[in-house]
């Protein structure tokens, strides 16, 4: 059986950057990673301004627009709130519009934000709709180097969290990272072997690997304190939780899709 292709992962988007970031040129531009940010309806994490600035496309899922309107000025207390709101204006607000406050919708609409009312579509979650929108309107030339960062995806109502994780599985060919104040998660599809580059200054050491939705009969890792070696994992049995990253690169291969999670450091 031919070896699996390798997929590499890195949380470098969480590193502080010179502002504004210099646009890539030449060959770099073609391979350059582009980011899109989706804001869901939870309190903004402290690194929201950093990720927003880094992104080329910003979408609020319904009440996420309230969070940006209220929360961005709070995260940038030294600055004039009105100026912050204008600077941190979403490109689109999408969803069934039952949570976004009318005056917030009006405000952003008057600034040019696209309002996409999907209330007729009750079959998919707001996040699902936003991911579809972004993949249809990628900020770069195509989706190949697109990373979608989702804020407010974890915590809160559990069914929302499960729905958000299901979006990772449904869009398994798209790089989507779910972020909260204290951890991030993304999917490691079984079709690839994975190299996760650890940014120690912003993430770790606590990590885990979870087979969400189906058992894994064989997973192997390197770079963790308690590595897996053709180990089976399932709910009801073993899960790799409260593990510790020990090396700068963690490798993972598995016969099943796994969720990777790592803690974010307090000052990130």
């Amino acid at each position, binding site marked *: 059986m031919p070896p699996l292709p390798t997929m590499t992962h890195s949380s470098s988007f969480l590193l502080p950057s010179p502002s504004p970031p210099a646009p890539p040129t030449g060959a770099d531009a073609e391979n350059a990673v582009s980011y899109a940010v989706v804001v869901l309806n939870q309190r903004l994490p402290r690194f929201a301004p950093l990720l927003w600035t880094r992104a080329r496309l910003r979408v609020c899922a319904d009440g996420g627009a309230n969070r940006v309107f209220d929360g961005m000025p709070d995260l940038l207390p030294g600055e004039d709130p009105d100026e912050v709101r204008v600077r941190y204006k979403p490109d689109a607000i999408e969803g069934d519009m039952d949570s976004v406050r009318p005056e917030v919708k009006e405000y952003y609409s008057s600034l040019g934000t696209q309002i996409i009312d999907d209330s007729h579509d009750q079959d998919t979650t707001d996040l699902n709709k936003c991911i579809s929108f972004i993949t249809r309107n990628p900020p770069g030339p195509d989706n190949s180097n697109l990373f979608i960062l989702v804020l407010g995806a974890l915590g809160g109502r559990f069914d929302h969290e499960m729905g958000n994780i299901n979006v990772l599985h449904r869009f398994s060919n798209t790089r989507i990272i779910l972020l909260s104040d204290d951890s991030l998660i993304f999917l490691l599809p079984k079709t690839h072997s994975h190299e996760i580059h650890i940014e120690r200054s912003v993430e770790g050491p606590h990590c885990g690997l979870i087979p969400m*939705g*189906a058992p894994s009969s064989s997973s192997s890792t390197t770079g963790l304190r308690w590595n897996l070696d053709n180990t089976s994992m399932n709910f*009801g049995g073993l899960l790799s*939780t409260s593990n510790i990253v020990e090396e700068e690169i963690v490798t993972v291969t598995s016969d099943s899709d796994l969720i990777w999670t790592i803690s974010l450091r307090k000052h990130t």
Partner: protein
Amino acid sequence: MLWRTIRSMEVMAHSSNFLLPKLHQPAKAPANNYTLVVLNQQLPRFMPRLWAQAKMRICADGGANRIFDEMSQMTNDLDRNRYIPEIIEGDMDSIRPEVKRYYSSQGSKISDKSHNQETTDLHKCISSIRHRTPNHEKPNLCVLVTGALGRFDHEAANINVLYAFSDMRIVLLSDDCLIQLLPKTHHHEIYIESSVEGPHCGIFPIGAPSTSTTTTGLKWNLSDAEMRFGSMISTSNIVDSDKVTVQSDADLLWTISLRNLT
């Protein structure tokens, strides 16, 4: 808890009447005895009442810090003596020394399981509860857990405890929702306390896909439906009746939103 037989499968009945103030609990309900386990996360808003109505209170390691620090603010009651857990259990790597000393001096039993690094603090607490419960009382056992959600890997580990002890009634509680396991071995009847829970709910096959799940009492019912991560799972559903029934060929997680809890 009621056990009956429907066709060849036993019925398991669920009710959240433990969330109601004691005055409002149905007169004929079986005594609502539950054991409370407090994990190391910010206490939910309704903790004072949950604490008061418990038959036993166990702090899992750093959960004791939470009671020590946060309970008096929630109750405007400076008297910590009123909130003493019967047991503090776990590997003791989070509880502050002064907190441990205080509760020990007030009579809490300190159950130090630090030699066991294989299982989580919640697993240790549930295991102890089961071990201490006489067999004839086991069918009536109900354990409520606060602080199970938070860092994602902790959350997964705590949910895994529901699977490891699938013959026990264990309910994870947060400010926003409750979560419990619906084992595939039973037909489930979930009685909805609409004054404190709902309408948002969901059902998830997180361990393994379901090829056939059937529900009644939801706005979007499932009828012999397949559910699988990567495809359809039931999120943002709505309870549409006083009673929801669920039958499935897979173990499922049930969640329902909580509200009006004080």
